[in-house]
């Protein structure tokens, strides 16, 4: 029994990180209709930024996280303004390919600016092992779960009540109508890119605290993407929850089935779920059978 609980808890811990990345995907998709293939790379850049702050300026966990959040927001805004804004009005497909090219650039910039060695993002509390009732988790893993739950609640309120949140939903539903109602699509896009970069960036920093930094970290994007699909590409909250589901599923598959199953459990689940609900677990029913 304790084996099952251990598997579930550590599944939730990694799932929370997938969930954060997945929310990053969903925020951009919801606002712009694009799948951002550079999400994993942006996450990695933010984590490296946090590491630079931690090793050159101060190891204070709050300063580092604050610095990373600001850095992530600037990164998101810069990408939106310089790379994505000029693509407004071009076919969506071209926009998606731009993010693919962006991913190539960001990935290479890691070993160009930093190096290929793995590094530890050691901020003390994040690495400490917390034990309670036979369970053990690292500080950053607990922080990831708490952050994800906090963000889920925050986003619920945001989409429900804030002007920006409602405007975002309006742009997602029908950007032309939203424009006519006086909503600036460009501002919404900028906000979405910044928010996505920050959310995924926090995930990246927490990930780095638990699993270290390496130039292979961008693969985290490929882990978060299935979660977004499962939750529904346009559902920010659903993506976060789906991250947890995928994390636990993978761990249970790894714990009870063959090693190969752990790797593809997420994808298999998506295929099964999408057969029944093509728009994802929590997505809006938009796909039409013809």
């Amino acid at each position, binding site marked *: 029994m304790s084996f099952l609980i251990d598997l579930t808890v550590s599944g939730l811990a990694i799932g929370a990180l997938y969930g954060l990345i997945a929310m990053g995907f969903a925020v951009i998709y919801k606002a712009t209709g694009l799948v951002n293939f550079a999400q994993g790379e942006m996450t990695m850049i933010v984590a490296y930024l946090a590491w630079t702050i931690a090793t050159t300026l101060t190891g204070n966990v709050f300063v580092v996280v604050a610095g990373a959040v600001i850095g992530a927001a600037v990164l998101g805004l810069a990408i939106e303004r310089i790379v994505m804004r000029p693509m407004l009005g*071009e076919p969506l497909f071209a926009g998606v390919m731009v993010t*693919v090219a962006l991913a*190539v650039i960001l990935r290479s910039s890691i*070993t*160009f600016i930093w190096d290929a060695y793995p590094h530890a993002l050691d901020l003390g509390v994040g690495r400490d092992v917390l034990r309670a009732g036979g369970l053990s988790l690292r500080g950053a893993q607990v922080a990831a779960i708490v952050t994800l739950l906090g963000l889920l609640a925050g986003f619920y309120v945001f989409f429900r009540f804030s002007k920006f949140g409602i405007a975002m939903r309006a742009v997602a539903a029908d950007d032309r109508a939203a424009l006519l109602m006086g909503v600036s699509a460009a501002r919404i896009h900028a906000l979405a890119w910044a928010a996505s970069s920050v959310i995924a960036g926090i995930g990246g920093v927490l990930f780095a605290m638990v699993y270290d930094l390496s130039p292979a970290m961008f693969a985290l994007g490929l882990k978060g993407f*299935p979660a977004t699909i499962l939750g529904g590409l346009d559902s920010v909250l659903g993506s976060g929850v789906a991250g947890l589901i995928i994390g636990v599923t993978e761990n249970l598959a790894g714990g009870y089935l063959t090693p190969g199953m752990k790797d593809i459990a997420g994808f298999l689940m998506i*295929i099964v779920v999408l057969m029944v609900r093509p728009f994802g677990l929590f997505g809006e029913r938009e796909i039409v059978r013809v």
Partner: protein
Amino acid sequence: MRSGDFKETYSGLIVLSDSTWVWIWSALLAAALVCAPFVLNAYALSLLTLVLITLIGALGLNILTGLTGLISLGHVGFLVVGAYAYAIAVTKHGLPPLAGFAASGLVAALASVIVGVPSLRLRGLYLAITTLAFSFIINNVILEAAAVTDGARGISVLRPTILGIDFDSDAAFALLCLAVTVLTLFACLNIRRSRIGRALVAIRDNDTAARTMGVNLVTFKLYAFVTSAFITGIAGALLGIYLSFVSVEGFPFLLSIEALAILIVGGLGSVLGVVLGTVFIILLPEVVQTVLHFAGSGVEALFANGVHELKAMLYGVVIILFLRFEPRGLVGIWHDVKRLWVHWPLRF
């Protein structure tokens, strides 16, 4: 003198090309390509071979994405399946290479039916996601089924001998790839102007309208998907032979994305665009290298160890600039240049 596009008969409308000059130029190009392997050095020849193999794969994807408007994020999966089908048939079971090629196409097509039947009933990103999942799952299947595929050890593949002709030398192999490429090109051009091709384009442009016109969506989407997978499977077999060693690692996920980049950069939906896009994407690293070389050893020294990363970054930058300033793709530039050439000094 070429006149405008006025046609009186239906067959005139769908003819491959109405211009004798296009035929003449194409024939000259084909002749040049046939001679090329005898003139080029081995490195240029290997680039040519790679362009040809990539072109076959990209043409396969084009039938799905360019013509039918369905996106596949996991086409590399069919490439792997094709390569393994060939390697298993020829290396492990000693079948003749022609049977190997048939197997590579057919097994890939079979895989596409398994993926396609459940996913093609729905539209939107669904196929993109199932193909993505497929390309990851198939790698696991290959690694797990070690009895058939030798798992992670991989299978080595020799250059084939077909109908008594030995394709062992680089030049001979390039000619084999050229022959397959030309066949595929004609197949694609002919599909485009057939009833099926018109149905596919109708689905891409407006599926509801297409259905009203009597196009069975599921059947035709499946046609497109299976044909696409078949061609990609053949390309996989050729790539396997080119690599001389088939393993899961030889087919990274990035290839799926690169194939989409080829279609976009070339110009979506056009066969000419696929050709231009393939040449562009494959030769881009060479161009970047040459530019860096001419920028002098100063730049190379400045970045010392980072020079390889710099190359990769420039590759990304060029693609972004391209999408930004010429969203119609290379085929758009081609048409502009042609118009300018024909009408100069007039603007229209």
